């Protein structure tokens, strides 16, 4: 039976077991929407295409399954761009579909034509412009394969309107055959033994785990290796939750706003085992002074990450989980572990993360209260800025896929739509978006989406009436010249109510907990709590850009 391109697309998505599509209609995708109308596929109508991209991203982070979004040509497609760049920087599996003007109209500056294929070349793992409906099934198959295997990432498929309308027979391929794409999965045995020997012989080893450790599902084997060899574990922002932060071996997060003890440990270690991480400048701060005393083992699925930012001694290319399993099979436990463990304990006791109470609501206190009220079992999305760093510092993450935050791109406005995606992907869980007052205003329209689908997610705004992180940098590096960082907002209680959500405002520390408890009881709609926090609070510790640990700023 011949079917239209649009119908074929929907069938292919069903074959891929897609459960949720985040999208927004328009002229060029009307055929796809028409086909969706008859389908059992669940489509979620957002209020801005950026919201669709971030929701698909949040869905993918929370579930490990590819997120799918759909937008029309021209402005619909360009509205996805930030979301794609965001997913690309954080290696999140996503497949984005955009409508395009009909093939014979391409290149004529037709109405709502944008070269989204060209625009997204550098911000997707791969992309396609489908010019013949017969190619569509193969392209969809390849896209899901590319998005979810190797180093995951977003893939975009641009679909001209006539391709969606043309009819053909559907033959969905079982496997994708890409001769230029064969990710290496097993670590090279020689390198594995070399690494194993280095670990056994190390006196002061540290593991640094990143997002790749989460996407490969490595938490358990990572824990096995760490415990077997008594290796303290720090994580990057992207790695949060892959190793329980209440574990005695946990060092929390490292880097610019990392714990003092994680940064000390990395600075003093003689062996750094970096796992599924890419030595970003927010981690190394100054790459040439990073882990100065250490030999470095770097385990990553992407060969291009080896030696890109930091020279490494033992590179192992492969799927992180498999490599760790290989390592665990051959590595011998370290014998003299006590000295290093004692040192780590000493640093942890001496330099805990802290803040001071002063009668105002401290943003860190709000985060701690969220941790307590949720029993540490929530999925925490964040916006970007101070709110994000405090969430990372003061919520104790113990499970992978529970911290959903824009790492590489640092996209304000990510948190709310990402929380929506996470809540849809994991309906039974408590989902919080820890927000800043600046960021929340970037995609606030998605509150309508959340209310529409009766999502019980909670938005906690740490409202400092500032673009706080900008204000902090201006105070520290620009002599307190606060150029345009003092920002106002609406009456959030009214706003929430107008959207059909529950709105609360909290102005005193003693009311924080009660508000959170009240929020936890709401099950049929979103809750937004406006916490008026101490305006001038800064995120510490902080290693200034290009600085080293000796330049660390503290409260």
């Amino acid at each position: 039976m011949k079917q239209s391109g649009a119908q074929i697309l929907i069938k292919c998505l069903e074959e891929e077991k897609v459960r949720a599509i985040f999208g927004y209609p328009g002229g060029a995708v009307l055929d796809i929407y028409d086909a969706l109308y008859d389908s059992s596929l669940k489509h979620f109508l957002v209020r801005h295409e950026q919201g669709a991209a971030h929701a698909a991203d949040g869905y993918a982070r929370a579930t490990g399954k590819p997120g799918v979004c759909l937008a029309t040509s021209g402005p619909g497609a360009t509205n996805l761009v930030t979301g794609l760049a965001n997913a690309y920087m954080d290696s999140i599996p996503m497949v984005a579909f955009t409508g395009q003007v009909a093939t014979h109209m391409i290149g004529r500056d037709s109405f709502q034509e944008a070269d989204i294929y060209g625009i997204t070349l550098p911000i997707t793992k791969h992309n396609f412009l489908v010019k013949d409906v017969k190619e569509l099934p193969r392209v969809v198959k390849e896209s899901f394969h590319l998005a979810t295997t190797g180093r995951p990432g977003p893939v975009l498929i641009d679909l001209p309107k006539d391709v969606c309308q043309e009819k053909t027979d559907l033959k969905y391929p079982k496997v994708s055959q890409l001769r230029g794409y064969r990710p290496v999965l097993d670590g090279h045995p020689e390198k594995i033994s070399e690494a194993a020997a280095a670990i056994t012989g190390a006196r002061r080893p540290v593991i640094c785990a990143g997002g790749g450790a989460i996407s490969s599902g490595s938490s358990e084997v990572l824990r096995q290796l760490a415990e077997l060899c008594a290796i303290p574990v720090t994580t990057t922002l992207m790695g949060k939750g892959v190793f329980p932060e209440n574990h005695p071996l946990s060092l929390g997060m490292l880097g610019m706003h990392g714990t003092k003890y994680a940064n000390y440990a990395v600075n003093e270690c003689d062996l750094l085992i970096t796992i599924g991480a890419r030595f970003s400048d927010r981690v190394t701060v100054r790459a040439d002074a990073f882990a100065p005393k250490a030999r470095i083992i770097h385990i990553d699925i992407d060969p291009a990450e080896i030696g890109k930012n930091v020279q490494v001694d033992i590179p192992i290319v492969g799927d992180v989980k498999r490599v760790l399993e290989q390592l665990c099979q051959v590595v011998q436990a370290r014998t003299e572990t006590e000295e290093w463990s004692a040192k780590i304990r000493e640093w942890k006791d001496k330099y805990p993360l802290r803040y001071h109470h002063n009668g105002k609501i401290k943003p860190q206190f709000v985060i701690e209260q969220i941790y307590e009220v949720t029993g540490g079992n929530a999925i925490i999305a964040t916006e970007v800025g101070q709110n994000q760093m405090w969430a990372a510092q003061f919520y104790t993450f113990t499970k992978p896929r529970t911290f959903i935050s824009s790492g590489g791109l640092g996209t304000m406005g990510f948190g709310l739509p990402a929380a929506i995606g996470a809540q849809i992907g994991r309906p039974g869980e408590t989902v919080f978006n820890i927000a800043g007052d600046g960021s929340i205003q970037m995609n606030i329209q998605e509150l309508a989406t959340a209310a529409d689908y009766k999502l019980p997610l909670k938005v906690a705004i740490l409202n400092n009436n500032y673009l706080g992180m900008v204000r902090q940098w201006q105070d520290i590096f620009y002599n307190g010249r606060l150029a345009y960082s003092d920002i106002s907002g609406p009456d959030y209680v009214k706003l929430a109510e107008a959207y059909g959500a529950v709105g609360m405002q909290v102005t005193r520390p003693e009311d924080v907990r009660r508000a959170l408890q009240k929020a936890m009881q709401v099950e049929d709609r979103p809750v937004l709590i406006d916490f008026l926090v101490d305006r001038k609070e800064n995120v510490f510790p902080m290693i200034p850009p290009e600085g080293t640990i000796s330049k660390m700023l503290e409260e």
Partner: protein
Amino acid sequence: MFRTLTVLVENNPGVLTRVASLFSRRGYNIDSLAVGQTENPSISRMTIVVEEGDKVIEQVTKQLHKLIDVIKVSDITEEEYVDRELILIKTDADPSVRGEIMQIVEIFRARIVDIGQNTLTIEATGDEGKIRAIIEALRPFRIRELVRTGKIAMLRGSRFNTVENGN
């Protein structure tokens, strides 16, 4: 140092853009790039000459590999290979120097392919060294225009650089 990479790519629209934008985005210096279909019409071969140090070349190679449309990347700089480039040179040539230019053309086994009132257009093919030498030899006569194809290269003997054969 100049490095010669041969890159087998899917003959897809957009592949040249992908490769070119990779170079510009990451700030790698391309000296020349020549591209065309291979014996297999679904595959194109690019010969890319890059002027970079070892560390950067390693990154270039890996980043190229990472492109889905790139099937194979080989750095053949240290290998035995044949390379050729075609150039056209239009030089000033009033009658008094034509004889001299023709001698040079003879020596390099090049050809004169066009004559203007006061110009000669010379076609030359050859490896890197020969091309460099003929340009230098003609420079004193004042080169007015120069077009070159970029280098193409192939391994010597019965060694192959195809999808099926080794690395």
